[in-house]
C-alpha cells in the first residue's frame, strides 16, 4: 500500500520538483547463485524506477517473469513457478531513502547507502544496500551489488535441490537514470 502510494506520489507530483526527479531509462538486474554443484545465472533489463534527488527517496520495480538466461527453459519455469511464484508475486520492489546527504544531481561519483524495504516473493525486508552513483551531465548511473538470502524472503528450496541452489543469491544492478521530462 505504502509502496503504491509512494509510486503514485512520485509520478503525479513531479511538477513540484520537476528538475529533481530522475527516471530509469535503461536498467538491468542480473543474479547468480554460486551453489556447490551448479551455477545459475539470469538477467533482466526491465528495471523501472525513479529517484527524487531532492527528497532523496527512490522506488524501483522489476517484473520477476522478465528474467532470462537460465541454464535451461525448465530451470526458468522452476524459477517462476516453484521458487518465485511470479504469478502470485509478479514484482520485486525496493522503496526507500538515501542515507547520505550528498547532492547526487551534481557531477561526481558518490558512494551512497540506499535504505528501504525490499519486497521479494511478497516478503518485505528492511535492507541497506551500498551503491555507487556516478553523475555526469545530468545523467545518473547507479551500480550496486547485494545479496538476497532466500530464507529471509520465504523462498523455499525443496530438499532435492537443496545442494544445487545457493541459499544466498548475488544480485547485480546497474541503471541509467535521466531527468524526467514532461
Amino acid at each position, binding site marked *: 500500500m505504502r509502496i503504491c502510494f509512494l509510486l503514485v506520489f512520485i509520478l503525479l507530483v513531479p511538477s513540484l520538483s520537476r528538475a529533481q526527479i530522475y527516471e530509469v531509462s535503461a536498467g538491468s538486474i542480473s543474479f547468480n547463485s554460486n551453489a556447490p554443484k551448479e551455477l545459475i545465472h539470469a538477467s533482466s533489463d526491465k528495471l523501472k524506477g525513479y529517484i527524487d534527488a531532492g527528497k532523496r527517496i527512490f522506488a524501483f520495480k522489476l517484473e520477476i517473469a522478465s528474467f532470462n538466461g537460465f541454464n535451461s527453459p525448465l530451470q526458468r519455469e522452476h524459477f517462476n513457478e516453484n521458487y518465485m511464484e511470479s504469478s502470485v508475486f509478479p514484482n520485486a520492489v525496493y522503496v526507500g*531513502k538515501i*542515507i547520505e546527504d550528498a547532492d547526487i544531481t551534481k557531477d561526481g561519483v558518490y558512494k551512497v*547507502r540506499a*535504505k528501504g524495504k525490499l519486497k521479494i516473493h511478497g516478503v518485505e525486508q*528492511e535492507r*541497506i544496500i*551500498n551503491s555507487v552513483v556516478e553523475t555526469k551531465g545530468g545523467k545518473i548511473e547507479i551500480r550496486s551489488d547485494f545479496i538476497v*538470502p532466500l*530464507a*529471509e524472503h520465504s523462498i523455499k528450496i525443496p530438499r532435492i535441490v537443496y545442494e544445487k541452489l545457493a541459499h544466498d543469491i548475488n544480485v547485480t544492478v546497474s541503471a541509467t537514470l535521466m531527468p524526467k521530462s514532461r
Partner: protein
Amino acid sequence: MRASLLTFFLLLTTIVSAQIPFMQEASLNELNTPVKVNAMVTDSTGYHWLATDAGLYRFNGRSFTLMHDSIGKPATAVAVMKDEVYVGYNDGTIGKADKNNTVVRVRLRNTAPSSSITFMYSFGNILWICTEGEGILAVINHIGVRFTSSSGLSDNFIYTLALLPGNKLLAGTDKGINELSVDKGKLRVRNYTMTQGLPDNIVRVIQPIPGSPLYWCGMQQAGLALFDSRTSKIIQPQMTEPWKWGQVNCVLPIDEQRSWVATEEGYLLECRLDNNNHLSIASFEVPGKRIKALVISRSGVIRAATNTGVTVISAEYMRYVAVPPPYRIGDIAAMTCDRHNTLWFALGRKLYSMAIDSGLHTPRVAGELPANITCLYADNVNRVWIGTFGNGMWYHDINGGLIAVAGIPPLENESVLDITGTSDRLWVAGLNGVQEVFYPGTYTKKMDLLSQHNKNSGIGSDYIYQLYTDRKDRVWMATDGAGVCMYNQGQYTKWDSASGMTSKVVYSVTEDAFGNIWAAALADGLYRFDGEKWHSMRGIGVQDANISTIASNASGQVVVVNAKGFDVWYPQSDLFRNYPHKIFGIDSTSSVLKLSARDTNGNVYIPFEDGFVVFKNVDQRYNIRPAVTISSASVFFKPVDAGTSRFGHDQNHISFRFEGINFANPERLHYRYKLEGYNDSWVVTSDESVTFPQLPDGKYIFTVQASLNNMFHRASEATYSFAVAKPFWKQAWFIILTAFFISGIAVTYVRLREKNLRKVSSLQRERMMFEYEHLKSQVNPHFLFNSLNTLTSLIEEDKQSAVDYTTHLSDLYRNMLSFRNKDLISLQEEWEILDNYLFIQKSRFGEALRVRFDVPQHVKENSKVVPLALQLLVENAIKHNIVSLSRPLDIIIESIENTLVVRNTYQPKLSKEKGAGLGLSNIKKRYALLSKKHTSFGIRNNEV
C-alpha cells in the same frame, strides 16, 4: 543436549589472533532446520530467551523450548522486565511469556506499533520499544506513549536504546544518535551526527561499558565509536587499520577494556580498548553466519544468535592455538613455556619453538638431538633444559645452539625423566634418583653436582616421574613406590595412608593458585593436599581415574588430563567442568605424563591433535554451578496455577517439574530433592520431575537442588511450600457437629424410652387404682347390703329367683376378679359381667331400671373394651340417678360407627354419692393409654 552438535570451525584461513575460541553450532529443533535468531537476552534465573523467525524460545543449556503463540509472526526483539519476558514481532505485536510456556498478546492502549519491532529495553516499569519507522514507544502499565520525528527525533527508524545517567536515553537512528531527556515536562532531543564526530550516521548499537562512563556505538559501516556520558562527546578510538568487518550487529562488553563485537558479515571481534582509547581487534570469522546477538551465561559461555541458530563460543574459558599439519601435536613428548611466552615442544628428537603471542603459529626447529627428548624445562633466564632418553641432559642456550651437560657423571648417558629448578639449583630426575646441581651462573661456567637424592637418602624410591617446584621453592616429587615426597631445606616429607594418601605410585603433581598441592595417582584418581591432609577427589566429577597430567592456571583452575578427556576444577564453584572427547572436536588426549605448559599469565596449554588447548584464567565471577527452578506443580498430572500452596485432601497426588539451568556441563546435571514433612532424606535423581501420590494431610516443603556430577555441596536450590488440607471428616467443625448429632440422637432415644416407660407404668398404676376402686366399690357395704336385702326378700318370695340371684352375684364377682388384670376384654365378655350385674340390680329396682343393649352380635365378638368399663358406667348411672317406678332410669348401650355409646336419662339424685368422678376419669385415662380413640362424657338433652 538435544540440539545436536553440528560444526566445528577451524578458522585457519582468517587467523589474526593468537588464540582461537572453539565454536560449535546448536540447532533449535530436532530436525536441524535452520531458524533465524533475531535477538537474545538472559533473564535473572539464567535462562536465555531467543526471539526467532519461528517465535520465542527459552533455552536452559540443554534444550530449546518454543513458546506457543497465536501471533504466528517472526519475533524480532525480546526484553526482560521484572522477571517477565516481553517479545516484539515484525508486525508490531507485543507479547508476554506466561508460566504455561505461552506467549500472550499484550494489548497496548493509547498507541500501538504496526511496524516491525527492532529493539526492546526495560528499566523500572517502563518498557521501551523501538520500531522501524514509527519512532519510540514507552509503555507503562500497557499504556503506550509515542515519540517520533514530530516530537523532535531526527528519524523514525530506531535501532536501539540505552539508558544514560540522569534519566536520559540514547537512541540510535539512521540520522545519528538522539539524546532524549525530559525538561519541564517537554521532551528535549539533542542530536549527534557526523558533524559532531560520529563516523557514520546509521547507529545500530549503543551499549554501556560496565564500570565506565563510556558507551559503545556500533555503526552500519564505520565500525565502532565511543560516547562519553560525562562530556557528551563522541570519541573515535584509534585503530591500526580501517574497519573492515562490516555492519555492527551487537556488542557484548565483558569489562572496561574488553568487549565482543559481532557483525552482519559473520565476524566475531574481540576488542580491547586501552586507556589511551586505542582499540586493538582480534577477529574470528564464523563462515556463513550473520551474527545478530551475543549473550554470556554466568558460567562464561558466550552464545551467538545467528541466521541459522545458535553458536557456542568458548572464548572466555578455553581457546586453542592451532598448529597446522605437517606437525602432529598429538605426538609430542615434552613441552614447556619460557619467560617470553615462547612455547617449546619436542617431537621425537627435534626441539621446536613457537611464539604464542604472535599472530602466526609456525613452529620453528630449534635443534635436533641424538636421542629422543623426554622432558623440557625453561629456567628463569630462558635457557631450555632438555632431558633425553639415554643421552643425558642438554640445554638450549639463550644465544642459540644445543649444549650437552658434561662433567656430572650421574647425568652422563642418563635417561632423564624430569627437570625442574629452584632459585639457584636444577633438579634432575633420572633412573638413579634426583641429582641436585648448581646452575651455570655468572661466577662459574661449570655445573656442579651438589647432592644426590634417592631411595637411600630419604625419598624412598629411585624413580621420580615428576619434579615440581612450588611457590615456596619446595621440590615435590611424584615417585613410583613412595607416593609423594616433598624436599625442603634438607628435610624429606612423606605421607602415609593415615594422612589420606593411599597410593604409592604418583604420576603428576601441581600446586593450585591457593597453595593446595594436587597429585594424580596410578589408577587411583586425584588427591588434593590442603597442607595437613590429602583428600581423595575420586567420584566427584573426574571422568576417568587414569590421569596422565595435572596442571593449574593462575585463577585457580586445575586441569586434569585423563583417558576420557579433560576435567577442569572450578574452585569458586567447587565443581569439575568436564570436557569429554569430541566436545568442540577435540578427539584425543595424550597419555604422555605431565604434558602441559604454563605461560607468564598463568594460562595452561595442553596438546591435542591440531594444536594446543589453552585453559585460560577464568574470570572470578564465572560460576559453573547450575541454577534450578521449579517449573510447574501438578495435581493428578494437571498443572495448577503457579504459587498454589493449598491443596484439598483429595488433591494429594502432587507432581513437580523442575529444571536445571547450566551452560557449562548441562549433560552432567543431577538433582536431589526432599519433601520435608514427608521424608527428610535427599533423593538423588537425574529425572526432571517427581510425583508424590497419596500425600497425607499436613504441611510440606519441597526442595530441589541441582548440581553437576552429584556434588551438592553449596548447590543452588529451589523450594515450594504447600499444605494438603485435612479431609472434612478430620476437621474440628465436622467432629463437633457429629458429636452434637450423635448426642442429640441419644438424648431423644432416652427421652422417648423414658416416656414409654412412664406411659406403661402410669397405665399400670391406673389399672391398679381402678381395680382398687372397683374392688372397693364391689365390697361397698351399701351394694352388699342392698344385694343381701334383695336376696332376703327373694328367698322369702321366690326360692328359685334367689338361687338365680345368688348365682349371678357370684358370677359377677368371679368375672370381675378374673378380668381385672387384663388390659382389654371382648365386648362379649364385658356384656356377661354387665348382664350379671344388671340381673342383681334389676332384682332390686324391677321395672324402674330399663336397660337396652343394642349392639350387633359381630361387634360384640370382635370389639374389645377396657374391662368393667360398661359395668362401671351402668353402676355410675344407677348410683347418681334416681331410680324409681315413677321415674324409671333408661340406660341405652349401642354401637354407632365403631364407637360404643352408653346413655342414660339424666335425673340426678339430690344427695351426692361419695367418690364421684373417680370411675369416669379412670376409664378415660385407661383409654388414652391404650388407644388414640376419643372418649367423651357429657350431659346432653337431659341424657348422660
